């Protein structure tokens, strides 16, 4: 092979390599999904889902046993009352999977959706309502079989539905908000939020509260009446957190808001940790937990004063999860995938998967 031919073939090979490095997978990467029960934390982390012992921080099992590059898990795993752990894949192959949370063994797997799974399902009255990025809400029985035609909602569904026990409330990424009567299979006229809403609404006594990229918080009643009740300085990514008559929410400027629902006024002027806030706020007891993109995990009291603040060391996008006496944080692209803190902010353990 002469030099010119070698050069040509090398250039083509180099081009192939560089372009291949762009990743052909439709879903490239995302932050972790995190859930917990009394004994274990469950974390979806790309090709694997892990169960971690809450006492020790040690791995109990991983799913699947053999890595399949077509499977990617980013959604928050969901535990069911009948002892299943449900999660869908966001990879090039997108089955919806039921795992035994004690052993990590697969109960069943079903492939019916055209798109990736980024949202977690909701369980209501022995039925699984599973939102997919293909714009359909799939209705399954507890063994994963479709019990009705999927409900077409339009835009990609990234957020889990919320329920008041009777109706389903769900956001789609095309700026629309949907109210569904699951027993009658009726979908109300969509409500335009003015911006994409990637997270679930918070359910209150009289309706639901949802934040959006329009930098507003909308209050939506079950009859479809809605109004903007608050604004923010930047996009609202996470779900609002409702605590009695107070609604807490945060924006991408990193500001945390406390809205008095009775008066419609803000309870404090400026509470702003050190970075944008994507994760939902968590209210537990007399603490508000917030995690920032700058990698800070902060506990506030209900007046907005900092109780303690920890530097986790990597960006945090995943909503923290309270598990018994611990609060769990899953940083993105860190040395460890999970850290546990006690109520005083002392780190109990970190979990780094073995290779």
């Amino acid at each position: 092979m002469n030099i010119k031919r070698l050069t040509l073939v090398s250039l083509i090979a180099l081009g192939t390599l560089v372009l291949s490095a762009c990743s052909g997978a439709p879903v490239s990467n995302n932050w972790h999904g995190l859930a917990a029960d009394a004994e274990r934390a469950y974390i979806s982390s790309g090709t694997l889902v892990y169960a971690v012992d809450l006492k020790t921080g040690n791995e109990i099992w991983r799913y699947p046993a053999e890595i399949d590059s077509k499977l990617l898990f980013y959604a928050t795993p969901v535990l069911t009352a009948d002892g299943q752990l449900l999660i869908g894949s966001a990879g090039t192959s997108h089955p919806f999977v039921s795992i035994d949370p004690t052993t990590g063994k697969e109960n069943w797997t079903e492939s019916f959706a055209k798109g990736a799974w980024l949202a977690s399902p909701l369980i209501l009255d022995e039925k699984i309502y599973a939102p997919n990025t293909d714009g359909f809400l799939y209705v399954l029985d507890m063994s994963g079989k479709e019990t009705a035609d999927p409900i077409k909602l339009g835009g990609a569904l990234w957020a889990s539905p919320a329920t008041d026990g009777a109706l389903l409330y769900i956001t789609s990424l095309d700026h629309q908000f949907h109210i569904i009567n699951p027993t009658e299979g009726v979908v109300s006229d969509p409500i335009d939020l003015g911006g994409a809403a990637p997270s679930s609404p918070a359910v209150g006594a009289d309706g639901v509260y949802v934040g959006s990229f329009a930098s507003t918080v909308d209050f939506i009643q079950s009859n479809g009446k809605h109004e903007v009740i608050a604004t923010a300085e930047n996009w609202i990514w996470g779900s609002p957190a409702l605590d009695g008559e107070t609604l807490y929410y945060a924006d991408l400027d990193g500001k945390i808001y406390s809205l008095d629902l009775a008066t419609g006024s803000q309870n404090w002027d400026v509470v702003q940790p050190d970075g944008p806030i994507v994760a939902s706020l968590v209210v537990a007891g007399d603490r508000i937990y917030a995690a920032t993109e700058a990698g800070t995990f902060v506990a506030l009291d209900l007046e907005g004063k900092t109780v303690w603040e920890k530097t986790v060391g990597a960006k945090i996008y995943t909503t923290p999860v309270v598990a018994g006496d611990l609060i769990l944080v899953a940083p993105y692209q860190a040395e460890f995938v999970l850290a546990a803190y006690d109520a005083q902010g002392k780190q109990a353990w970190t979990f780094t998967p073995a290779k």
Partner: protein
Amino acid sequence: MWDTIIINPMTNILVWIYDVLGHGPHMFGLAIILFTILIKAITWPLNASQVKGAQAMQELQNDKEWLDMQKKYAKDKEKIAQEQMRIYKERGINPFASCLPTLIQFPIIIGLYQSITHALSVTPYDMLKLARAIYPFQNVEGIIPLNSTFLWMDLGRPEGILQNLIHTSFLPNGFPLLALIVALTTYVQSKLTMPTSSNPNDQSAQMSSMMSIYMPLLLGWFALNFASGIAIYFITSNVLGIVQYAATGRANWSNLLPGGNKKSSTKK
């Protein structure tokens, strides 16, 4: 650096065109087509130099000094190579001029691919990055997320039709119509622009001949496996290239026929 210079400007232009078009269904596909026309206009000087380079190479094949040199050093390939380089230098001919524009397309293709996947934001993390990449003057809240539908395709995913009828491990997305069109148009374009030569030792012609085989296969493979938005770019770019070359009156249509490239006559 790469993001700042290539990806972010490309993404912003794509998003801006999409917004101007009315940001509805099919508009992102149209935005890619218009963006490709823009890229073609910008790279027009490169393409013109390709035409000029190919013409110079064609003329050289019938040049007396060139033919004499080939005959004289027929048994000494090293000497032929030296003499070829001397003649190239003396006459100001760049032997890579005909394939250089194609190779220069690679960074554009990579940038476009990343811009398309960037703009379509298939995960929350991608969307967060997109939000940071969009310039402040754009109405990003109103247009995010971009509608990735174009004809029968989702531009953020590999293309395929008849998925219900054709579903094999080799063709997981159905019949690869776009990939075939990409390969065909790439083949036609490279054949039309390929210099003709009656000289079996002409390395330039050998290289062009190789390119006309490898490039359709390579780009067809990309179209098969990557986001269908990139296939829209390939097809638009190829068709524009064919039209552009045909407009110069130098398109060698006989090259498309079997054995056509052995003919020595070219249109002038």
